[in-house]
């Protein structure tokens, strides 16, 4: 039959041999990496693909999950919004073989695209909870341009009043007080009408607040009408862990 397209393969290796096997011993490495300016528009899903391809270029022996649709074993931290840069992204990489952590870092950095760079790599002890489970919040520095009154914004936050916003969810639009999800807020004027905002917000699987949403909630309770402003830059500076005091 001419021009017949038969199924494209998913993973072309000998699955039959694998499917009945017990999972072999694997080794998990935690990498802390920067997502810089050049990579700011890389989405979370793109990042998974970028790491898996980089590992193949670097010949890193990544462990592939068993079963009918094997996939490389990467666990990424909380997704970043597109356009946001970060100095503290995390990925746990599971390997088939033990290799020196420095080697993993160096070989990956040779092949990762501009803007993505691993800064630290450590081998985890077996049983360490994965990165998604350990994280509780994010620290952000935002540069905002607009005619804003920074002390009024600060007052709104310091007053301790509830910050109830409309939230879209599966069950429709609901109201939600985001104040408990904001751990810290500060703002100062860098130059004329350019402000630097410092924010700590909750991150996690259950409750998650994007820094833009936090800032916009504070804006909403400071100004009666919409004020025009632009995000010049949003940079994640650090993460907060579960066990912080």
């Amino acid at each position, binding site marked *: *039959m001419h021009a017949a*397209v038969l199924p494209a393969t998913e993973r072309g290796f000998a699955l039959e041999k694998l499917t009945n096997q017990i999972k072999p011993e694997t080794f998990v490495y935690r990498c802390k990496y920067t997502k810089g300016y050049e990579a700011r528009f890389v989405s979370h899903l793109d990042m998974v693909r970028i790491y898996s391809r980089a590992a193949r270029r670097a010949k890193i022996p990544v462990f592939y999950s068993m079963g009918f649709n094997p996939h490389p074993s990467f666990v990424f931290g909380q997704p970043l919004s597109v356009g946001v840069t970060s100095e503290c992204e995390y990925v746990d990489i599971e390997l088939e073989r033990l290799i020196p952590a420095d080697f993993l870092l160096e070989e990956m950095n040779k092949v990762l695209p501009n803007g993505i760079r691993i800064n630290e790599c450590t081998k985890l002890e077996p049983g360490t909870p994965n990165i998604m489970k350990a994280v509780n919040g994010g620290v952000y520095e935002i540069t905002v341009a607009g005619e804003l009154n920074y002390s009024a914004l600060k007052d709104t936050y310091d007053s301790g009043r509830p910050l109830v916003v409309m939230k879209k969810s599966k069950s429709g639009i609901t109201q939600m007080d985001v104040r408990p999800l904001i751990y810290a807020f500060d703002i100062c004027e860098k130059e004329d009408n350019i402000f630097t905002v410092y924010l700590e917000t909750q991150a996690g699987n259950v409750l998650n607040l994007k820094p833009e949403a936090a800032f916009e909630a504070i804006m909403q309770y400071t100004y009666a009408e919409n004020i025009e402003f632009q995000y010049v830059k949003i940079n994640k500076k650090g993460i907060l862990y579960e066990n912080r005091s």
Partner: protein
Amino acid sequence: MKSYISDSILKSVTKPARYVGGEVNSIDKSSELACGNIKIRAAMCFADIYDIGMSHLGFKMLYHLLNEREDTWCERVFAPWTDMEAKMREHGYKLYALESQTPVDTFDLMGFSLQYEMSYTNILNMLDLAGIPLFSKDRVEGQPFIFAGGPSANNTEPMADFFDFYNLGEGEEMLNEIFDCYAQWKDSNLPRQDFLKMVDKIPGVYVPSLHSANDGFIVKKRVVSDFENAYFPKKMIVPLCEVVHDRVSLEIFRGCIRGCRFCQAGFIYRPVRERSIDRLVSMAKDQLESTGYEEVSLLSLSTSDYTNLFPLADTLLSTCEPQHVSLALPSLRVDNMSLDLVKRVSRVRKSGLTLAPEAGTQRLRDVINKGVTEEELEKAVRLAFENGWNNVKLYFMLGLPTETDEDILGIAALGQKVLNIYEEVHRGRKARRPEISISVSTFVPKPFTPFQWEAQDSYDEIIRKQNLLKNSINRKIKFNWHDPETSILEAAISRGDRTIGKVIYEVWKNGAKFDSWSEEMNYSRWMDAFEKVGVTAGAYAERKYEFDEPLAWDHVDIGVRKQFLIEENKKAYAEIITPNCREKCARCGVACYGKGLCVGKIN
């Protein structure tokens, strides 16, 4: 590289990663440029969005080929999607190149890859967004030369007023000759017009402004001297965001041994030449090493026609498997051997099986020279069902020359037969519901095919035939069809002359772009443009051309003789099939290149 477009705009558009460059293996020659070592700034342009252009092997290959030149920095340019274009125009941004993030209006050369006629309005839109005059005659010293290649470029005429020159046929060697010529001209300080005279002398190059229709000048398409060893980059660019086809593509052969009489690709890419297994495996290894892709796909017009397909697949699998890389085998003929192979490479998902009988009766399949019989079809479908497939897609064309209602009803009957075979195979057993679909497209007469003289059905006739088929297909079969508008425009443009160029200009002026995207295409806008120019689409599409009347593309020689196409056309009406190139040489004329299967040198 600092982005040319502000972040606040980039954040407001869909998929901003399309617009900032910085991909793995992209070429940054900004330091060479700063040192004054770059003589030629060039752009490979694709008249569609990033996601489509970056899926195109030829486009990426030629990008790397030009960047091998020390005197050249070749960058990439794609059409911004409508949301981005609106923002760019609103804020005064010009069309720019991804690598340097600088506007292209001062570049030396811009080459467009013409893959389909419906992208022509995008070309005008891109030039306009770049601030470059659309018409070749209006461009002056200091502005880029705009040229084009690719399959649709073979009819040079519809876009002849816009392009400075065309390069016809395979570009691997010709592009370097063009760039050498440009470097020489740039050193000479001669006027703009002199470059056009110089480049016109390169075989395969056609400068429309130097020739008028049927002045006796013939341009012959180029074929690379050695396909086996033709340039292929060791390091291929890898997009950061998801694009349509994102994998290693191995071009296993060029040309096609089948001479389906409607198929332009089957004629323009002749002669048939294969790459050896050794060369392909070494290419695959280089590609995997430099890209990290998780899939290798074989690229050709018909995978099964590669001479040593099974040894090739075995060797590739042994390279791929240890790296967790999968192998994709598109356009495979269905038989025992190929099903075994498919089972071996994909133990995972039984995705659909696609068959393209193209016509519903044996008579019409003989007319179009689709070398497939009813028994072969039945056998293939039975085999697939016995091997666990339940999803079969059947592709057909409506409006083929000599088609009668009986042929159309034959499509429904064939669908029914496939359904019956499924029930037969699973008789007495519990089976999944079969998912059988029939998709029909509309025949488009294309230049350089035996059907280039044929009439396309009228709009109403196409609709009538679609309804006839829709009403005769078993409801258990899913029926897919397209509105005829795009096919009519394709026929009119692909057989178009310079007058069609005026229509394209008019319709662009009225806002047409992304006409290959059905949600963006506006047929009445096109009809208005035809009317304004004073011609009808029907005069180009619906008319049956005479064998002895001059055709707009007569000055382009693809190696296949016109007389051969006439003979093939007559054989179609006599319902006589032509054996494939491997069985018996049909003497189409392309042996004049002295290459490939024609002269017994497959590699």
